[in-house]
């Protein structure tokens, strides 16, 4: 028993606040947009040059000039604005985006993140991931707790880094971890997924972590 992909996205959506400007990575993070509470105004940024991203278009209404950072066709909203890549990343690098939710291959207990390359495999490139984790105020990682049975929450990342001391919160299928990336508080398990146990997490986590009182 553990959270499904949708449950993880639903949990990530609880990090949203009214008025937030948010960048969602591909994969599970994209699902978060399905769980934005009704009446909450959250604007999605797409780093290729769009703020206020709408849902996929109806069939036949796709516009090749209107895509998101995953190269998927999307739509406008009444709030939408378009801008250049330089302006888009000025927005990201300048700390104007409230929250970035993205996937990861590895997260270290100090907040280091690896999510862009596996040595020996063909390198596709980091796209905007390094800019997002360096620039966005709060970075939330959503990922499976393990990959092929191996822990992804590590003492130290073994893959090439995307950023150092950048992750604030990790949501896995087994639970939720806070990381004191700016201080020395390390990693803390703050929530258990439905049906997950402390033992199960301990067995599948290499990183050192405290357990919040009450768990």
């Amino acid at each position, binding site marked *: 028993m553990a959270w499904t992909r949708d449950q993880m996205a639903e949990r990530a959506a609880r990090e949203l606040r009214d008025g937030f400007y948010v960048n969602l990575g591909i994969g599970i993070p994209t699902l978060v947009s399905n769980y934005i509470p009704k009446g909450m105004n959250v604007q999605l940024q*797409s*780093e*290729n*040059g*769009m703020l206020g991203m709408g*849902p*996929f*278009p*109806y*069939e036949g*209404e*796709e*516009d*090749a*000039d*209107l*895509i*998101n950072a*995953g*190269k*998927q*066709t*999307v739509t*406008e909203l009444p709030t939408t604005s*378009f*801008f*250049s*890549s*330089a302006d*888009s*990343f*000025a927005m*990201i*690098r300048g700390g104007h985006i409230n929250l970035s939710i993205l996937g990861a291959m590895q997260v270290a207990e100090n907040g*280091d993140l690896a999510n862009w390359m596996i040595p020996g495999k*063909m*390198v*596709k*490139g*980091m*796209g*905007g*991931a*390094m*800019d997002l984790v*360096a*620039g966005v105020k709060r970075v939330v990682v959503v990922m499976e707790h393990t990959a092929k049975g191996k822990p992804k929450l590590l003492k130290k990342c073994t893959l*090439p*880094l*995307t*950023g*150092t*001391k950048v992750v604030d919160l990790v949501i896995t299928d087994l639970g939720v971890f806070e990381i004191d990336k700016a201080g020395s508080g390390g990693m803390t398990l703050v929530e258990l997924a439905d049906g997950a146990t402390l033992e199960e997490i301990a067995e599948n986590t290499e990183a050192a972590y405290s357990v919040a009182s009450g768990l």
Partner: protein
Amino acid sequence: MVNKVYPDATAALDGLLKDGMTLMSGGFGLCGIPEALIDAVATSGVKDLTVISNNAGVDGIGLGVMLETRQIKKMVSSYVGENQLFAQQFLDGLLTVEFTPQGTLAERIRAGGAGIPAFFTKTGVGTTVAEGKELREFDGAEYVMERGLFADVAIVHAWKGDTEGNLIYRKTARNFNPMMATAAEVTVAEVEHLVEPGELDPDQIMTPGIFVDRIIHFPTASKHIEQRTTRPRQ
């Protein structure tokens, strides 16, 4: 009177292409790429190109065409994952790639066009991107120095343009085009709609004509979609 309007892409590139040159090519994925101009560069046979472009096209489309013809020696890009031929040529050692984070790439191009030889950014600190580059602390945080980029020729795609070279882009097809237009010795633009001066609202012009040396009317852009995603009608 100087005439910036050329009859087609091949004419617009005449005299500009040289083996070993550096070329900037606008677009994100296949969105807003200068299709006609890319095809004309491919047809020209110019080789050993260093191409600065966020992506490398897909197989057979966009810069993918220039990979087939093996005209590219080096790419400066943030993401090239959509292209099988790229992967193969890279693994075979036929081309090299300088991976640059997308925002750093955009800013390096802007800097090149704006007379800024170098700037500092947090992006990439502590990663392979910062290796060999100067690190420096400002107000308690660490930054890496990145250099401006400037090309011999930039090719860009716009939605509308006038004969003076003023350009307006459409939706997310804007992406890297405006910065690249400023960051080359010679900039060549293709536009879907070519109009006379005065027909564009001067407040809405995104690239002033000063940056555009040559322009072609290209009303038949094919505008491929990489990921056609839709939702059901309710």
